């Protein structure tokens, strides 16, 4: 039965797939060169450690960075130790620094806290605090084994040296500059591997920001039920013993199989198209923290696994969309109506991204799933105990199941045959 459904939809699917893939092809190659030039200039030093070793090292380095930062403030900037005895105007700032650098918070939690505090009460915190925090961030990335941008290290060293040479510099500043210089010079400037991380970054940005596949689903699913209704086949199906129930289930699964096949081929072709920009394959085995958007991640996974997780989450996202389009097709009297409604619904995420990106189309297309996954505040909400990927997967699966159930119920209600009113009522 499924085979029959697959066969009947095959030509439509192939046509839709070729059409959508051609658009994707154009999308990938339009404006690619400039972005690649930019990324190629930003090669990063990354670790060749196994993810688990890397992860342990990361935590140790995070502690070192935090201690050093705290050390600067307590020993060289004249702040107290957080005991609260010194009740001055600067106490509030001291507490914030304590929150940021002390306690058992992860670095990413501290970073989010800082941003939220700043946004909640703009102008309250001194600009120097921001600078301090930036330095802490810089030190953090400098210490960790995924390395740093040597240019920035040089810049910091140069700035501190310049400050030291200035005759008007206060003693206190001299101490801080010397201290920072010592820390900066500890940074390892001889990386073990130099793969272009930018390629993976670019690939992920493109892949996750690609909504074009949604329109393959629009074309595939518009006739899922509406076409049978239009052709009258639904009447024939209704007269069969398990007709309607089996039909809805099989038709849905048939389309899910086609979508899955389409998605796998699409992703594979995408990968092949982007292959020249991925760079060295060895980067796939590196810890995920080498990627800027995941540098504070607490999960010990490789870049390759991260890509697979994104692939999986995106699959579940499209599964939800497929089920939603199935529901639209069930409610539509004609496949053209279904096509139009699904098309409008499918374009909503794009419009939403456009609004988010304030009209920048490229930005809108690029940033969505990745940015959503990297919403560290959601991680904080779940206490970082539940991987965000698992939460998103559960949400998408629940949504898919709900849409499928709605399609089933709507189908049964819409097409059921009811008894005629009794003749006595007429009389």
């Amino acid at each position, binding site marked *: 039965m499924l085979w029959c459904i697959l066969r009947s939809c095959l*030509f439509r699917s192939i046509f839709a797939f070729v059409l959508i893939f051609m658009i994707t092809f154009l999308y990938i190659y339009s404006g690619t060169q400039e972005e690649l030039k930019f990324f190629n200039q930003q090669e990063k030093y990354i670790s060749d450690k196994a993810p688990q070793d890397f992860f342990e090292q990361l935590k140790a380095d995070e502690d070192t960075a935090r201690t050093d930062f705290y050390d600067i403030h307590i020993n060289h900037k004249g702040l107290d130790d957080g005991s609260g005895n010194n009740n001055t105007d600067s106490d509030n700032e001291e507490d914030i620094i304590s929150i940021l650098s002390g306690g058992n918070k992860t670095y990413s939690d501290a970073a989010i806290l800082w941003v939220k505090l700043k946004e909640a009460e703009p102008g309250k915190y001194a600009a120097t605090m921001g600078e301090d925090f930036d330095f802490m961030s810089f030190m953090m990335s400098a210490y960790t084994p995924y390395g740093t941008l040597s240019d920035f290290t040089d810049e910091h060293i140069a700035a501190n040296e310049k400050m030291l040479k200035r005759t008007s510099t206060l003693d206190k500043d001299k101490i801080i500059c010397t201290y920072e210089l010592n820390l900066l010079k500890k940074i390892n400037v001889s990386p073990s591997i130099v793969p272009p991380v930018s390629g993976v970054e670019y690939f992920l940005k493109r892949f996750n920001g690609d909504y074009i596949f949604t329109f393959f689903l629009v074309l595939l699913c518009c006739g899922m039920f509406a076409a049978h209704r239009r052709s009258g086949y639904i009447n024939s199906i*209704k007269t*069969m013993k398990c*007709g309607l129930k089996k039909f809805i289930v099989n038709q849905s699964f048939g389309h899910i199989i086609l979508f899955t096949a389409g998605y796998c081929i699409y992703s594979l072709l995408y990968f092949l198209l982007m292959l020249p920009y991925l760079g060295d394959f060895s980067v796939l085995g590196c810890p995920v923290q080498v990627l800027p958007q995941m540098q504070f991640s607490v999960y010990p996974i490789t870049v390759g696994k991260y890509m697979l997780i994104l692939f999986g989450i995106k699959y579940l996202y499209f599964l939800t969309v497929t089920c939603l389009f199935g529901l639209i097709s069930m409610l539509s009297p004609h496949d053209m109506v279904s096509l139009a409604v699904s098309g409008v619904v499918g374009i909503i995420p794009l419009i939403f991204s456009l609004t988010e990106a304030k009209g920048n189309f490229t930005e809108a297309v690029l940033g969505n799933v990745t940015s959503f996954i990297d919403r560290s505040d959601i991680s904080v909400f779940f206490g970082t105990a539940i991987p965000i990927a698992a939460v998103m997967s559960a949400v998408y699966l629940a949504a898919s199941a709900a849409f499928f159930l709605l399609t089933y119920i709507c189908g049964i209600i819409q097409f059921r045959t009811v008894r005629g009113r009794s003749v006595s009522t007429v009389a």
Partner: protein
Amino acid sequence: MRRLEICNITKQYKKKKILDNISCTFTEGINTLLGPNGAGKSTLMSIISTAASPTFGEVKLDGEEIISLGEKYREQMAMLFQHQPYFPSAKVNEFMRYNAELKGIPSKTIPELIEKALQRLGVGECGNMKMKELSGGMRQRIFIAQTIISDPAVIILDEPSAGLDIAERLELKGIIKELGRSALVIISTHIVSDIEDITDSLFIIEKGKLLWSGDTNDVPNSDISGFYLKMTKGEKTCYGAY
């Protein structure tokens, strides 16, 4: 003996009555609904097959209301629609299997039943052909084969001879005659020659009303054609019961 009773069936679309208080009883053998195009035959067939709901009235199989019987009724009944949809790119065996699964036939028995049904209709060699490659007559046989695959007790054939040439119509007559030996067959048509010689009971419908119903033996001189013309032209003067 199976009995299918139509009790005061009325079908109304907005204010227009498609069927107007029709009551009759179909029994085992071949029952023919005869009437011009637009008389309401297909609507009545749809109601009998549970594809459509009546506005008023009910249909009973052996005294039980068919909507209440639900799957039990649909298990015993099969319908061939006037414009039977199909998958053009599907093979005959796949199409048959698709319908057999929707009819709830156990998977294991399906291949055997498909072969049996195709053999019965004389199209046993067509199993691996695509539906779109078949001639109109052959395709109609396949449709009938899928209708009878579950060996139903009630077979409803809506204009089964539509689109067939004379030779194919004659062959179809033979097939229907054979089906009528073991099941309650209801055929709707507007072509008298399609059912002449084979029908057991006749039901003449026009403008949604049942003009005449009865045994074919009640038709004078066995001239169904002439009788039908007289009935539909308003010369309802003489024969049988209304």
